[in-house]
C-alpha cells in the first residue's frame, strides 16, 4: 500500500473522487487491522462508507498509545510532540519516511515558490532528531542551499543571519515563536530582505506563554524584513501528520495537497458545519499511512470551501475560571 501511495503522490495528476475515497477506505481498513488501539477506538462505531466517516483519532491519543500500523521492530523514526499537558509527549512512529518526505516536496512543488537559498530559524535535524519540524526543514534542503541560524541551545546567530540574507533573495523559515524572538533581538534595527524573498512561519506559541496576533506578527515582517504580508506563508500541520496545509498573507483559507482532505466539524455532533460556520479541524491524510489517516484536532476554524480559515482563540473565552489555565502552568 505504501509503495502504491508513494507512486500516486509523485504522479502530478490530482487525486479526485472516487479515487480518494477508495484509497482512504482501503488504508483505513489496513490501519484498523494492524493497530490494536485504533481497532478498539473503532469498536461500536458504524462502518464508514465514505472517507469523511472514518473514525478520527484525537491528537492527544498519541500521548497514550503507540499508533503504529506496522510491527514495532520496523520503526525507523519517531517524532515527538511537545508535552504541554503534564502527561508527557506524544510519539509518532514511522516505518518509512518516504511518504512523509514525498508529501513535503510534492506540496512545495505545487506551491510554486521559486527555488531560493534557505535561511532556517530552526534547529537542524541532527540536533533535534525527534522534531518533525526539523526533519521537514531538512527535507526542503533538496530544493536549495540551506543556512541554519539557530544554535544547539536554541540561540539565534544574528551575524550568520545577516550574512546569509545579504547577497540576494532568500526563503526565511521558522516557527512564529522564532520570528518573534528574531524581531525582539533586532529591536528597532531593520533587516530588509532582497526583493523576491519569501518567509514561511509555522506553529504557534503553544506552551510558551507567549502570543502575538497574526496581523501584528505580519506587520513586523513588513517593517523589519521589508516583506509584504502576501510574501509570508503559513504552514499548518502537526507531529501526528505527514502532510501540510498552507496559506499566505492574512485572512485566507489554508489548503492542503490532493492526497489529503480537511473538514470543519461541530465538536458535539462530529458532523461538518455549513460553509462559513465555526467548528474544529478534522484532517484526512493518505500520506499518514504508518499510523492513522484521520485525525481530530482542537483547532478552531471557519469552513471555507475545501479549505479552512484558522481562528485564533477568542480572548473572551480564555481564562474563565482560576483552574482554567492548567495548560498554561503545566507548560
Amino acid at each position, binding site marked *: 500500500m505504501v509503495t502504491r501511495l508513494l507512486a500516486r503522490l509523485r504522479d502530478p495528476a490530482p487525486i479526485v473522487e472516487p479515487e480518494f475515497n477508495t484509497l482512504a477506505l482501503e488504508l483505513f481498513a489496513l490501519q484498523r487491522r494492524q493497530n490494536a*488501539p485504533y481497532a*478498539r*477506538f473503532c469498536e461500536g462505531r458504524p462502518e464508514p462508507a465514505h472517507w469523511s466517516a472514518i473514525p478520527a*483519532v*484525537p*491528537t*492527544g*491519543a498519541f*500521548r*497514550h*498509545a503507540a*499508533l503504529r500500523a506496522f510491527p514495532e521492530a520496523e520503526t525507523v523514526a519517531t517524532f515527538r510532540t511537545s508535552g504541554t*499537558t*503534564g*502527561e508527557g509527549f506524544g510519539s509518532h512512529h514511522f516505518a518509512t519516511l518516504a511518504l512523509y518526505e514525498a508529501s513535503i516536496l510534492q506540496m512545495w512543488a505545487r506551491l510554486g515558490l521559486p527555488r531560493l537559498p534557505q535561511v532556517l530559524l530552526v534547529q537542524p535535524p541532527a540536533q533535534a532528531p525527534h522534531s518533525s519540524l526539523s526533519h521537514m526543514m531538512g527535507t526542503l534542503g533538496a530544493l536549495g542551499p540551506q543556512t541554519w541560524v539557530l544554535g544547539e541551545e536554541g540561540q539565534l546567530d544574528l551575524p550568520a543571519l545577516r550574512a546569509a540574507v545579504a547577497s540576494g533573495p532568500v526563503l526565511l523559515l521558522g516557527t512564529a515563536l522564532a520570528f518573534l524572538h528574531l524581531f525582539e533581538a533586532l529591536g528597532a534595527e531593520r533587516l530588509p530582505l532582497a526583493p523576491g524573498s519569501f518567509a514561511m512561519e509555522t506553529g504557534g506559541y503553544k506552551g510558551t*506563554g507567549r502570543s502575538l496576533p497574526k496581523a501584528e506578527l505580519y506587520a513586523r515582517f513588513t517593517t523589519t524584513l521589508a516583506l509584504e504580508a502576501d510574501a509570508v506563508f503559513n504552514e499548518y500541520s502537526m507531529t501526528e501528520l505527514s502532510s501540510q496545509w498552507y496559506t499566505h498573507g492574512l485572512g485566507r483559507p489554508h489548503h492542503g495537497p490532493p492526497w489529503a482532505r480537511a473538514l470543519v466539524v461541530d*465538536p*458535539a*455532533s462530529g458532523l461538518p458545519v455549513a460553509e462559513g460556520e*465555526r*467548528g*474544529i479541524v478534522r484532517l484526512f491524510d493518505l500520506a499518514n499511512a504508518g499510523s492513522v489517516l484521520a485525525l*481530530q484536532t*482542537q483547532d*478552531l476554524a471557519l469552513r471555507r470551501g475545501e479549505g479552512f480559515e484558522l481562528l485564533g*482563540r*477568542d480572548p*473572551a*473565552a480564555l*481564562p*474563565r*475560571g*482560576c*483552574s*482554567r*489555565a*492548567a*495548560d*498554561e*502552568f*503545566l507548560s
Partner: protein
Amino acid sequence: MNTRERARALAQAASAFPGFGPGSEEALLHLIHTELGSEDTLEPWAPPRRTRAVAPGTILHIISGNTPHAGLQSLLRGLLLGSHNRCKLPSAGLPELEAFYARLPEALARRVELARTLPPEWLAEADAVVVFGSDTTVQALREQVRPEAIFLPHGHRVSFGIVFDDSALASLPGAVEDVCLFDQQGCLSPHLFYVAPEQALAYAERLAEALEAVAPAHPVLTLEEVAAIVAVREEAAFIPGARLWQNAEATPRWSVIYDPRPGFTPSCLNRTVFIKPLPADLPAAVAPVRAYLSCAGIWPPTPAHAERAAATGVSRVCPIGQMQRPPLTWRQDGQPVLAPLVRWVDYELA
C-alpha cells in the same frame, strides 16, 4: 465603624450569603488577633499600646475568575481592615459579589466601588493591589502598579479529592456537589478524585449515575469547551485500562473517566472528572503540580487522613462536600491574608 462593628456587620452580611463558607464575628476577630497580634491593633493608637496597624487607604481588587470565592473574600478582608475597596470585576460581571455588595450596610457599602472595566486612575491611586489571574495578567499589572504600593498576586490553583475509604459511598453526594458548583471553574473545584484502589471503579460508576441525575440539561459551553471535553472522552479509548461514562446527549453534560495511571490529570472542567486508584505514594503522583495545589477534599475526614492529604502540598484540607465553602478566615494560598496588607506604626514614648 470600629473593628468589632465591622466584623459584626460583615459576618451578618456574609451569613445569609451562599457564596461564603462558615464564619462569625468572633472568627473574624480571631483572624485579626492571630495575624495582627490583637483585636484593637487597627484602632487609633492610645497608650499603653506601643504599636498600631494601619490599613491601606485604598485597596484595588482585580478579580478575573468567574467563581465568587476569591473576589468575595478579598473584598471582605479589605472591609474588615477598614480600607476603601475598588473591585475590578470580570467584564461579564460577578453576580455573587454584586449581590453581596447590595447586602452591605450603608457604612460599609460606601467603602466599595465596583467596575467591569478598569478605570486607569484606579491603578495609580491604589495603596495596595490584590490580583487574581494568570501569570500573564499578574505580570502585566505588576508593571503598572506604583513601586511603593503593596502588590499581592494570587495565581491559578487546582484542587482534588481523596477517598481513603468509603465502601458505603457516603462521600458521593458531597463529591457531586464539589464537582457541580461553579462548573469546576474554581481554584477549589476538584479536577479528580483519588479513590482506594479496590473501591475506585465502583465509585466512578456511582459518580456517573449521580451526575446524570443532577447535571444541567442544557449547559452553556463554548465551542472550545465542547471540543476539549470530546477530545478527553475520545482519548480515554487509548489509555490502557481506562473506562469512560458520559451522558447520552450530543452536548457534553458530564463525563467520568476511570484512569488507572496515578499522575495528576488536569480536567478540562464542566463536570469532567477523573477517578484514579489512590497510589501508595500520593505526594509523588501530584509532585508535578505541587506548586499549584490549593485544596484536598478528603473522606473519611479524620485527623490521620488529613495529615496524609497535607503531605501532598495542599494549603487546605476539608471533608469532601465542603471544598467550595472555605471559611471566612481561610488563608488563601496558605499565606497570611491580612498581615501583608498593613503597615505598622511603633510608638516608643516610654
